[in-house]
């Protein structure tokens, strides 16, 4: 069995033709992933019992002649910020090194109900804060394409696992680009759906109003299928959307003729790079397929970074308060007072990036500063969303880079958080607007580094997004 080349369809075909059982596949996929993992450190831990139990359920269904589900037997990796009952969920943090959740995230439940097999949990920046996965307390992830480079972040482990071929699919989370950027760096498909499209129940919160769960896959079709499985209203998440879930897979029909694409001039003005050239080439390919391309403007873009890092850190400072040493987190040993317990536990437990964001967020919410920072940021956020609304009156999709540059070297930017923040510019705007966006591979640089093109559509416009991504995938593969 060639594990790295499996697709949802090939797994299904193999199972239905009885070429292998789900248990055999799970067993082999686990062995392969465990053997390959030292090259990348993509997985933090494996969940063989859970995987084999899931595989047995799929085999039972097959034996009874039942439909084994749209993801039957498919090996999936899950980012370690998404909780899994009975399987350690560390969020890449020392504080949760031994934390075993007593419940499953909704997305995990749906994934398994569809027959998906969870092999293990993937490495990430601590509490999903970072763009390189170097902020993990458990060591960085290496990019499978170029092992001296980062896989992007924060969902670097999930992107790497899919790129490396140790999982067919992966779940990641995206707050400001944490799915799209690693997908771009690793040369896989990564989707950030509309805010509220996938339940956040069980996703460890970083910035609640920006957090999304979304799929990674090696093909647009597989990403679409996975999104279809995990999307939909969940009564346990008050912000989840009730809108019906269309057949995303069926939307990939090649019919892109006449679709209008917007190129934001604010995004492309300083992109005289290889990345820029590859995006331009991708747009040309879509034009050749009959898309119309227009120049558009997203004037509030200049404020996006500041806005994002105020809102995201403000929410993070509150969301991370619960890791205090009182209940399930690790606890610092010698504390005489309650204040010491908090200080020591959090001082020792959090990494530098988390501390930086907690302090920044605490500051912007402080008495006397709230109006100047948080409230103003919320107003600018509304302006950014309005920019997109205006754009979508004219165009069906906005095309943008994912990152200004391809995967950088491990350690290259780790001491320069500001430049790391600035590189989030193209993904952050879509996050603030709550619209769907994805990264689809559009070529590689001369050095062989993958570059993803970002496609953004209006709220719940995932079908158009998948249609365009599928068409581009056809052209580039």
């Amino acid at each position, binding site marked *: 069995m060639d594990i790295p080349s499996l697709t949802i369809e090939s797994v299904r075909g193999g199972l239905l033709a009885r070429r292998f059982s789900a248990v055999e596949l799970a067993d082999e996929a686990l062995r392969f992933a465990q053997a390959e993992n030292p090259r990348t450190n993509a997985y933090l831990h494996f969940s063989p019992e859970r995987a084999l139990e899931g595989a047995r359920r799929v085999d039972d269904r097959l034996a009874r002649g039942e439909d084994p589900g749209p993801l039957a037997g498919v090996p999936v990796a899950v980012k370690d910020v998404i909780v899994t009952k009975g399987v350690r969920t560390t969020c890449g943090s020392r504080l949760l090194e031994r*934390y075993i959740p007593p419940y499953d995230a909704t997305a995990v439940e749906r994934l398994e109900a569809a027959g998906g097999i969870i092999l293990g949990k993937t490495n990430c920046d601590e509490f999903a804060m970072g763009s390189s996965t170097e902020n993990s307390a458990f060591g960085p992830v290496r990019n499978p394409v170029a092992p001296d480079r980062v896989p992007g972040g924060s969902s670097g482990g999930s992107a790497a696992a899919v790129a490396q071929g140790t999982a067919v699919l992966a779940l990641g989370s995206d707050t400001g680009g944490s799915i799209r950027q690693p997908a771009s760096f690793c040369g896989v498909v990564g989707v950030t759906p509309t805010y509220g499209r996938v339940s956040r129940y069980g996703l460890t919160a970083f910035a609640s109003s920006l957090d999304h769960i979304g799929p990674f896959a090696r093909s647009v079709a597989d990403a679409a299928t996975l999104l279809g499985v995990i999307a939909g209203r969940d009564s346990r998440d008050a912000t989840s959307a009730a809108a019906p879930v269309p057949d995303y897979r069926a939307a990939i029909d090649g019919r892109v003729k006449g679709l209008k694409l917007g190129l934001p001039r604010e995004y492309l003005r300083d992109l005289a790079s290889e990345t820029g050239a590859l995006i331009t080439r991708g747009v040309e390919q879509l034009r050749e397929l009959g898309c119309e391309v227009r120049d558009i403007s997203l004037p509030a873009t200049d404020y996006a970074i500041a806005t994002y890092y105020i809102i995201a850190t403000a929410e993070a*400072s509150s969301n991370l308060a619960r890791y205090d040493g009182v209940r399930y987190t690790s606890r610092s040993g010698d504390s005489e007072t309650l204040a010491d317990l908090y200080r020591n536990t959090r001082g020792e437990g959090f990494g530098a990036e988390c501390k930086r964001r907690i302090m920044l967020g605490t500051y912007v919410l402080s008495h006397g500063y709230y109006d100047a920072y948080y409230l103003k940021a919320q107003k600018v956020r509304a302006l950014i969303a309005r920019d997109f609304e205006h754009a979508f009156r004219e165009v069906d999709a906005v095309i943008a880079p994912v990152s200004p540059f391809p995967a950088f070297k491990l350690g290259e930017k780790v001491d320069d958080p500001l430049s790391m923040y600035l590189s989030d510019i193209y993904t952050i705007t879509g996050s603030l607007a709550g619209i769907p966006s994805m990264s689809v591979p559009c070529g590689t640089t001369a050095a062989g580094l993958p570059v993803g093109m970002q496609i953004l559509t209006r709220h719940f416009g995932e079908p158009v997004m998948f249609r365009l991504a599928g068409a581009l995938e056809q052209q580039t593969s």
Partner: protein
Amino acid sequence: MSSSAIDLASPESIARYEPVIGLEVHVQLATATKIFCGCPTSFGAPPNTNVCPVCLGLPGALPVLNRAAVELALKAALALECEIPAQSRFARKNYFYPDLPKGYQISQYDEPLAGCGHVEIVVNGAVRRIGVTRVHMEDDAGKSIHDGFRDSGRYSYVDLNRSGTPLIEIVSEPDMRSSEEAYAYLMEIKQTLQFVEVSTCDMEKGHLRCDANVSVRLKGAEKFGVKAEVKNLNSFRFLKQALDYEIARQVAVLESGGRVVQETRLYNPEVGETFSMRSKEDAHDYRYFPEPDLVPLRISEKWLAGVRGVMPELPAHKRARFIGEFGLREYDAGVLTATRASSEYFETAARVSGDPKTAANWVMGDLMGLLKAEGKEIGESPVSAEHLGDLVKRIAAGEISGKLAKEIFPKMFSSGQAAGAIIEREGLKQISDTGALEKVIAEVIAGFPKQVTQYRAGKTTVLNLLVGQAMRATRGQANVTVVTELLKRNLAGGEKC
């Protein structure tokens, strides 16, 4: 905690000042489940058993608002005559404490559920309107237990059963001018919320908790003085004691040339004093911001109309109606409307009896006396409102005397039987039939010739003795009015012979 070594002000000094008091009242809503999850709110379960990922604040768990809690909060807001905007919003109040598992409380901040309400209180015969600034919803924290364990010297324990219990906070305007008014306000809030069945308001179980903002100013002054917030006022008695202490303390500080500092003080009921807990400088910065896990709470006209439709008559309205419709005295109307159960009991009894005033006396006197003696609530009364009403009706109809009714009622109370059954069984019906009584009267006149002569000689006071004899002869069943009339007629008749 610093011990307060200051002397309190004299009554003369205090009399020159006017206290200004506002109350913050927390009320536990009487829902079956918590505000943001499905865990039961029941009291007394083993520690940390009524919990789930949401109320434990586990990573990834999210709150979902309980509609039943919103409906109770709306009932409270309507009962307090509040305005209810179409939209309110939840906000996070951030602070660290071991019994606060999320590291923040989900409360409401700049967009509360309701505001601009009021209640009316009566103190020393004067009616005063106390403004209700706002009513907002929030979740309760867990409970820290600092003693009772073998290692309590070193560790505290946390029970999160209470975490996520739905609360409303009712903030008053600084409209109260004495501890008596604060007491009356809190009582009015309690009775009103019990009436509309928003809360049991059981203070012992912490279902009703109160903090006070207190300042004093020279009488006639316009500006408010510097206020202190006094916490831990968890009984009506403590509220009054703490306020009286705090008022006297502040007056003493000012009279001795000092200044009141803005601070939070804690009432210690064991010594009857308030102690400084933290100064303004140490005050928490709660870093409020809108709760991103919840959508804004929209109250549609339809929803609000539905809640209005199930609102019972409010106590103040009921009081006014009892006075107007039944002619009750204000005090009696107040006693009878103290709880919804007593008001409903009385109203039923009054209607059955046809004599509301007498019914009121029976409910407040005999019934409440016996209930109190047995430690029972009116809802547990063995005598139903219908049965009490029926008893009063029989008195009004002259079927039994008031005196006889007083003997029958305890039997009704102990047996749960209706008056009719007891009268029937014991043959207690009042004798008003003049024919049946003539014989008895004749016997009395024959048996007491001396008194008869005295009466006829003009000493009419002996009549009482003769009436008493007639009553005794009928074992108290004779209608005393009829007996008196018959005696008078017979005695007068005899003179003519």
